[in-house]
């Protein structure tokens, strides 16, 4: 039995984490090992990226039967959409490790990070819904641990809250998955939970299908989070340790959008198209609502939490716009936003370490103390706002175009709302970083070499993707075309 490359990506961090758990190593060795693992995975991901063929099909497949009596298999594979998220994970996690280099001094911190990486990859590659659910929920345990062990404030309450909240959503998805499995059994006489089999089901009545649709939707909406399922967001983000909030905002939230595309479009193409208007509207509403909420925050972490939710609303709207611009824009914004938000949260983590947790009014004048910090902060910020020349601009432009095609009124609205982000982001930048104030920020130090090394690739990516988006778009386009044309039967270019 040979082990496929995707399996290695999933299980390498887990195996290393298990070994480190038992081994009596110091946290430094643990950290170096974790970093080594993340670099290995980056190399493997690069291999996949270069060998990925430009078709809409699923590649690098692996298949082993698991629970045979119920037709459950361990089956993996990636398409263009999962590929970009894989690249995202592979690039962002080493960066994050570099920024946490001297910051996270506990062994279990690194072990949790490794476990999370395993869970995320597993979720990303699963082609069997049972397996997908397996990873989707198992991924939560290390998150639970990392917030509970290393969070601040009322961490135990926050970690229980996010755990219970997300499990609630996923359990409803679980029922939906089971229902699909049973329906498949009744229609074809064999058990299967493979996505490619479940899409063939024709016997489910419309009413039931709507229930199933929302069963899935609930799980993803909580994870993303869409309005009104965001109530876990603020507390979790502000109480999480830097590594946790980084993973939650820049990767795990994106998995919600990913699953939306990967599973809901093939499973419920008609309902997806039919309900799209509501979700585009909901996404845009979320964009505005969270944007306004962000303006009202005085704590940078909380503000970025809302800003992140605001962008995810935008991404969701793009996905539901049912055309190639919208979807491509969403994919692009997933990447752009993951890099930018991830970077911003990491930078805020640096700031917190030097200055402690402070509200905006207690900051100011950091620019003179920490020029590198300011530079990277600015790049990430420009990307979030969507300044031309960054990838955020390309992404937002595409989504706005997509929504315009979908519905001109909503398009106008979405174009205007992009301004919201600009208003609070620049305000933060001005208030916290640029303008001199009486507040004592003498403890602020500039970025260390490790931190600069970690952020540099992100900054380069932001600019490169902003200037030359095709570099990246061509890999994903066939997959999106496949979703739109073959499955949804819309958006012929």
């Amino acid at each position, binding site marked *: 039995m040979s082990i496929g490359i995707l399996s290695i990506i999933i299980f390498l961090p887990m195996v290393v984490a298990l070994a480190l758990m038992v081994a009596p190593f110091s946290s430094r060795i643990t950290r170096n090992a974790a970093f080594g693992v993340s670099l290995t995975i980056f190399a493997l991901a690069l291999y996949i990226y270069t060998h990925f063929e430009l078709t809409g099909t699923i590649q690098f497949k692996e298949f082993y*039967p*698991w*629970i*045979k009596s119920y037709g459950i298999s361990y089956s993996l594979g990636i398409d263009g959409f999962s590929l970009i998220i894989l690249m995202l994970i592979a690039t962002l996690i080493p960066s994050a490790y570099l920024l946490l280099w001297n910051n996270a001094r506990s062994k279990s911190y690194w072990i949790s990070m490794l476990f999370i990486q395993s869970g995320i990859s597993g979720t990303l590659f699963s082609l069997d819904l049972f397996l997908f659910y397996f990873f989707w929920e198992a991924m939560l345990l290390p998150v639970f641990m990392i917030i509970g062990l290393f969070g601040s404030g009322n961490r135990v309450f926050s970690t229980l809250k996010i755990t*219970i909240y997300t499990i609630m959503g996923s359990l409803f998805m*679980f029922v939906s998955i089971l229902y699909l499995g*049973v329906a498949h059994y009744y229609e074809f006489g064999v058990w299967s939970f493979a996505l490619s089999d479940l899409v063939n089901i024709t016997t489910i009545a419309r009413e039931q299908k709507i229930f199933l649709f929302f069963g899935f939707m609930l799980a993803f909406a909580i994870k993303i989070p869409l309005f009104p399922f965001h109530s876990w967001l603020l507390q979790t983000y502000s109480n999480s340790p830097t590594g946790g909030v980084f993973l939650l905002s820049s990767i795990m939230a994106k998995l919600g959008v990913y699953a939306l595309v990967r599973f809901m479009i093939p499973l419920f193409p008609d309902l997806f198209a039919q309900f799209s208007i509501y979700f585009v509207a909901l996404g845009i509403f979320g964009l505005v609502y969270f944007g306004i909420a962000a303006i009202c925050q005085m704590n940078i972490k909380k503000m970025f939490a809302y800003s992140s939710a605001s962008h995810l609303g935008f991404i969701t709207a793009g996905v539901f716009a049912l055309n190639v611009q919208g979807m491509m824009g969403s994919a692009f914004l997933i990447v752009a936003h993951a890099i930018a938000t991830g970077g911003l949260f990491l930078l805020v983590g640096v700031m917190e370490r030097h200055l402690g947790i402070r509200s905006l009014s207690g900051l100011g004048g950091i620019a003179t103390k920490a020029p590198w910090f300011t530079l990277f902060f600015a790049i990430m910020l420009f990307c979030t706002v969507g300044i031309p020349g960054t990838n955020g601009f390309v992404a937002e432009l595409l989504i706005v175009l997509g929504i315009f095609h979908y519905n001109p009124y909503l398009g106008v609205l979405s174009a205007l709302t992009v301004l919201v982000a600009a208003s609070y982001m620049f305000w933060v930048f001005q208030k916290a970083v640029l303008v001199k104030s009486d507040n004592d920020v003498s403890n602020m130090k500039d970025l260390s070499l490790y931190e600069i090394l970690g952020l540099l690739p992100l900054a380069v990516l932001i600019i490169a993707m902003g200037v030359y988006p095709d570099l990246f778009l061509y890999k994903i386009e066939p997959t999106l075309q496949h979703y739109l044309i073959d499955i949804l039967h819309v958006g012929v270019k």
Partner: protein
Amino acid sequence: MLWTHLGYLLPLIIVASGAVLLMLLSPVERFSMERFSLFTFVILLLALGVDIVYFGKLFTAFPMEGLFSKMLIVDSYSVYFDALILSGALVTSLIGTHYFQIKRHFKKEFFSLFLFSVFGMMLLVHANELLTAFIALEIASLSLYVMIGFQKIHDKRVEASYQYLVLGSISGTFFLLGSALIYAGLGTTILGDLGKALDGLMGKDVSLIVIGATFILVTFLFKISAFPFQNWTIDVYDGSPLPVTAFMAATFKVAIFGFILRLMLIDLDPIRDIWDTLFVVVILATLLYGTFLAIIQESLKRMLAASSIVHTGYLLIAFVSIGYAGESASSSIIFYLVAYFLSAMGAFGLISYIAADEHVRVTYEDFRGFAHVHPYMAAMLSVFMLSLAGIPSTIGFVGKFYIFTGAIEAGYTFLAVCGIIATFISIYYYFKLIALMYFYPACEKEGTMIPTLSGITPITIGVIAIAVIWGGIGNTFIAYFPGVDFLIDTARLSYMSLFIK
């Protein structure tokens, strides 16, 4: 022929004669408690070894029909349940070792009683006749009543024992009355014949049989602590010595289900749908009330007792589904029993290990910061909590998967959703413990000595923890080593043996 039949009955014979032998030997001063404990272990292991010979084969037989008529049956089904009961007893004796060493009030007769109750449970799954079943049930219960109250220095024990005795006996009389009514209606008490006689009566008035069977179900619901007969559970579980609680919660339930499934699947099949609505109500109430009780408990042991009521609810969901998805629902019950048995046994066993010292109260608060002092024990306890909560990568998750799939297959999607909601709430009371253990600094109270990891008990618990995880992720990658598939396949096989005519 005689030898084959004796072979079939050998596990029963071994356990029964072991029980008698231990009883006779108990006045002999020369044999210490440790010896008795070891002897019990050997007897159980022997019986399990004999039982395993027949494991995984499809067959059914009435051993020594000339002597026993059709009162006893041996088939793949009973072999499967025997294996479960014997492993449960084995694990109990292993995890109890430490407890019995520390607590000196246990007398040697305890082990004899223990074997008697194991014998009763095994007899119950072999019973092919209502009165035999009643006798088996009473053997098991009577031994348990005494085992609970054995440590008589404790008021709580006596109260638990007495409460269980009184209520259990009353519920037992229902069984007897039910059997009488069924006999009055059908003229036989032998399973198999009951079904045939009932088939002949279809279209006529069967109310006598329905009432009789309902009475039997009352006993069943009482023993598995379903609503509205659940009130004794928390007090009795809480009042019992921990190894006995583990034994009751895990093993006794297995035996009860073993008998009632046999009765329901074969004999009451024609009229089973009469109880559907009743069962739906019972399930909802059991889930609701069990969840409510579990949330408000402060002591860990009481929480586990209350949560066992919730797990009864899940099992009943599968139980009501057997009418419409017989095979998958029945095997899901069997699988879930294994899953629950492992997780609960581990949890109770570990707590009993920690709490062997009399003065430790085992509330949630006592576990604050536990992980920083005893990382391995905390990890094991977390594994059991995760499994009870049904989180992926544990056997509890696979068990829930089977149960809810069976329910949806049977058309009870609504019940599956209710089960899911109960599961969701259960996250709270299971994760609370994990959170307390890990997320707070250690505060070792003065005077509480928690034993270090050594001896047979922690090893057993460790093995159970690995089994729990293996049951959740195990697969066919490792050849010749049973994975998830193995358990459900053998469960299906044992289910099929019920229908061999």
